């Protein structure tokens, strides 16, 4: 045990001897310089928590990986279904030592602490990009970056399209767990719906985990039985929910990636990640040897998220309304969360006159469902 805990073990020493003095010196220097020596070539490792083609979370990441693959000099190695355990560290080490990867995309939330942080400390000349983690200056290593998007902007647009298409004005939201990211999406969906119809309500079902297909199907069916006629969700793979909505003849809004192919009739629009923006900027910085930007955030304006193309069921009027709000968002003039806003237990969530712009860290700690959402945290 003591051997592996030493900061400089025998394997490291042998590797340095074999690589020769010059390369060894390059390894000792801060990150960036080693990449310049590699003459415009970069190997990127990408780790996914599930299958790459899940119509959801992992597919959105894989689409960005496919785009950076096209960049000249970039080689991509990928591994699917890496559980959020010590397996993450093993996969990362294999990518670095066997494939020569010097930029790692760790795409699942649970990879960050401790796995990515440990690997970043062990390999200071490798860059690590993690999706969703809260990177903190001074606390976390400088070769780690966190990227994430303000997808609640798209959820707001989804809510507008949903309320316009709905006849019963009852909307359904199938969510995995009541964590701030999810609550923020549900609330933005409701606020968008209320902007179109002040009487619209959103019923929430929490399934308890990110991938429970039978429970998601059951939730979808029981919401439809209660008169809900538009469904959306925040689970890892929206495939099941969108398929059931289509089979039962109601509308759906997608999430993570486009599920339009699964529901040609009822798919209204969806909230999609556009990870190619942070991916390409991180890859470019690594190839040019520029210092790493440690905290990347963005919404529609920065190209981190995008709405799915409108489906045939969205009326011209609804399209115009939604596009007008989207244009404001792109200009940075639209604030989703502003007072006065009550939560659904009657307490004041945001006081009158207070408005939280997209970057406001208060929003990353949301713990309430707003008035009009039927459900409990």
């Amino acid at each position, binding site marked *: 045990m003591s051997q592996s805990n030493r900061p400089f073990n025998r394997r490291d020493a042998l590797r340095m001897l074999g690589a020769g003095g010059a390369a060894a010196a390059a390894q000792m220097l801060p990150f960036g310089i080693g990449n310049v020596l590699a003459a415009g070539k970069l190997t990127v490792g990408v780790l996914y928590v599930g299958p790459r083609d899940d119509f959801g979370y992992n597919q959105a990441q894989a689409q960005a990986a496919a785009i950076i693959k096209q960049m000249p000099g970039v080689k991509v190695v990928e591994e699917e279904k890496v559980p959020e355990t010590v397996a993450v560290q093993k996969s990362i080490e294999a990518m670095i030592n066997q494939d020569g990867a010097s930029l790692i995309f760790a795409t699942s939330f649970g990879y960050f602490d401790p796995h990515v942080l440990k690997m970043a400390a062990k390999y200071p000349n490798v860059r690590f990009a993690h999706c969703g983690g809260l990177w903190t200056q001074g606390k976390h290593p400088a070769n780690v970056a966190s990227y994430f998007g303000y997808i609640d902007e798209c959820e707001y647009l989804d809510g507008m399209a949903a309320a316009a298409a709905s006849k019963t004005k009852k909307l359904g939201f199938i969510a995995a767990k009541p964590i701030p990211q999810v609550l923020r999406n549900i609330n933005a969906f409701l606020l968008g719906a209320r902007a179109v119809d002040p009487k619209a309500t959103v019923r929430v079902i929490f399934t308890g985990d990110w991938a429970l*297909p039978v429970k998601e199907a*059951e939730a979808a069916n*029981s919401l439809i039985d209660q008169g809900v006629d538009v469904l959306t969700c925040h689970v890892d793979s929206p495939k099941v929910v969108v398929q059931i909505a289509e089979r039962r003849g109601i509308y759906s809004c997608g999430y993570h990636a486009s599920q339009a192919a699964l529901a040609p009739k009822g798919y209204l629009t969806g909230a999609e990640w556009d990870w190619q923006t942070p991916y390409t900027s991180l890859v470019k910085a690594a190839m040019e040897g520029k210092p790493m930007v440690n905290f990347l955030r963005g919404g529609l304006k920065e190209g981190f998220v995008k709405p799915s193309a409108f489906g045939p069921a969205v009326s011209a009027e609804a399209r115009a309304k939604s596009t007008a709000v989207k244009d404001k968002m792109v200009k940075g003039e639209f604030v989703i969360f502003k007072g006065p806003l009550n939560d659904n237990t009657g307490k004041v969530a945001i006081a009158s006159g207070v408005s939280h712009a997209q970057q406001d860290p208060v929003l990353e700690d949301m713990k309430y469902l707003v008035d009009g959402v039927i459900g409990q945290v």
Partner: protein
Amino acid sequence: MSDPASDFALGSLLLALLGGAMRVSTPFLFVSLGECITETAGRINLGLEGILVFGAMSGYGVSYLTGSPWLGILAAGCCGTLFGLLHGVLCSLPKVNDIAVGIALMLFGTGLAFFLGKPLIQPQAPMLPPLNLGGWSDDPQVRSALRINVLLPIGLVLAFVLQWALVSTRAGLVLRLVGDNAAAARALGYPVVPIRIAATAAGGFLAGVGGAFLSLYYPGSWNEGLSSGQGLMAVALVIFARWNPVRCALAALLFGAAGALGPALQSQGITSGYYLFNAAPYVLTLALMAASCTPGRILAGAPGELSLGNR
């Protein structure tokens, strides 16, 4: 309870539970009937979870490639039979423990299904058509609760046929004899090992069909989280159904209804304590196990050759 609104909600909740029982119970039903046959012959096959997942994958794949969901069901059943045969043959070797082989088979079946199923996550295979038994009603909720799959009535009929066959036919008697006392069966000249292998293979067939239901009807797509332990729960279900096929069917329906409780309550706005309601099937398993385990007759009705008790 007196005002009409809450009465309506109760009626609608019961309907939701009925609908859930109709939709969710089929895999439980098929896997537990299969395990019932296997255990009656004196073997435990814990690998049914793996067979269920492999059946889901192979059924989806064949349905996608041939365009016929019925061929998919058949293929899933045949794959299940092969896995059952494997378990049966391995357990017939000397000094092999059937529980250990079952666990190995479970890991093998799921792993192989994940490996071969990689290209099947994205495409959409043709689904089994539903039977609309609720056409007489105007209430959309009644109609959706009674939109069932043809496999459910087949499974229910199968439960009664099995019950009758086990009790009243010569074949059933032989099966029970092999499971209860191998020495007596041998003395009467029945081939114990081949009968057990055949019973395990039949169990595998039914579990494979149950898996195909998951991917070809409800929820109706192939992905790696599809089963989430349903095969294992079905094995537990056989034990508290006391190796009785009709009781297996009742228990499967009860499990389906319990699984629907959490989402049904939340969709009606009863949202406090949803973690508790989502745990309902597991709580029910524990409660039924505790209630049926009266001291002294813990495994009453268990086939004598099962490696459960120490008789």
